[in-house]
């Protein structure tokens, strides 16, 4: 059991690193112009929305991985 906990922590760490890469790849180049003084606000709002969606997606994936790794223990 304890070995699977180490595996789960390692997978979480990998997902944080990869998630950071995706976040920077998607959000980094994103720049919204042409809305005057509202451009910065719109830019931030869209970035925030994408980030929140990514976090929700990550939680969903982590939940699936949790069920996969701890399947036996959780069922018992």
């Amino acid at each position: 059991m304890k070995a699977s906990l180490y595996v789960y922590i390692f997978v979480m760490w990998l997902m944080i690193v990869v998630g950071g890469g995706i976040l920077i790849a998607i959000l980094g180049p994103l720049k919204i112009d042409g809305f005057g003084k509202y451009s910065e606000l719109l830019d931030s709002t869209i970035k925030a929305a994408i980030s929140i969606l990514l976090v929700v997606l990550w939680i969903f994936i982590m939940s699936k991985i949790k069920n996969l790794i701890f399947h036996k223990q959780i069922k018992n």
Partner: protein
Amino acid sequence: MLEKTIVAIIVSAIAFVTVYAVTPPLIKTLEKRKLVVKDYNRVGGANVARPGGPSVIAGILASETVLYAFYSSPAVLAIILTTFLAFLVGLADDRKVLGGWFKPLALAASAAPIILLGFYAPHTVYEPQLSFPLFGYVKIPLLYFALIVFMIPITGNTINSIDVLNGVASGFMTIASFALTISLFIVHNYDIAIASLPLGFVSLAFYKYHKFPSKIFPGDSGALTLGAMYGTIAIVGHVEIIAAVALLPAVINSFLFLSSVKRIIEHRQLKANPVEHTEDFKLKATADKNAPVTLVRLIVANRPMTEKEVGFAIFKLALFSAALAIITAFMMDVRL
């Protein structure tokens, strides 16, 4: 550099000695005023003094105030004020049990000094960006406010939720906070690294009295204080991701708990305990289907273990995460 080393030694010594000296009289006072709770995991169910938060906050305030006297840094002031507000929230919860949602909301409000001092002294308290290993950073001005507001309740409650066995919260915090300090040195943020030292030494000194068999429990005031200070250091030190990595075993515990109960509730509201005792008073996983899945339940899933053994199993996981956090800190300077 010599001056910084001397200051680091002074604040570390103040933090350690304050908690080491204040905790024994605090235990006596709490016992005299009958502020004790039953330790259900101990044979005979001994009464243990609670809360230890006052000695924890005494160590933090004494050391951080001295540090502020040296450098007058707004970041250190943010650490002092946010941690103290979180302590008050915890103390209120220790005195009178607060509702499930009240605590996260009150802790979110504790983050106000970070935001306000950020307006007063831009770029010295926080930067509205997240740094990731290998890939660089992303600026998120609007979202970063939300991150600050969420960070303190998350770190506070994460440490609080792992405070289930003798010595675990303080021992875990000692490992995680020293990993954070090392990481701050690696990313060359020396001032905040020094400001983070008291957290490790306060946790270490408190562990002396909290380890199995506990003489005192931190209570919500102790656990929330430690967690809130950790979260604040992550923000003012610009090491949010590294801090999250060092905290992973506790994060997993909260994640497992929330995904099995599917709502925010206190441990005391649970209808079934995740672990039970064997005849020789070891901890074993319960067969109750209504009990939540927790880190401790998974650790004892294969065989019953003593409370001390479970504690050390959690510390080994914490050391593994600490190593990953330090590796992450080294990866911050590497670009793909």
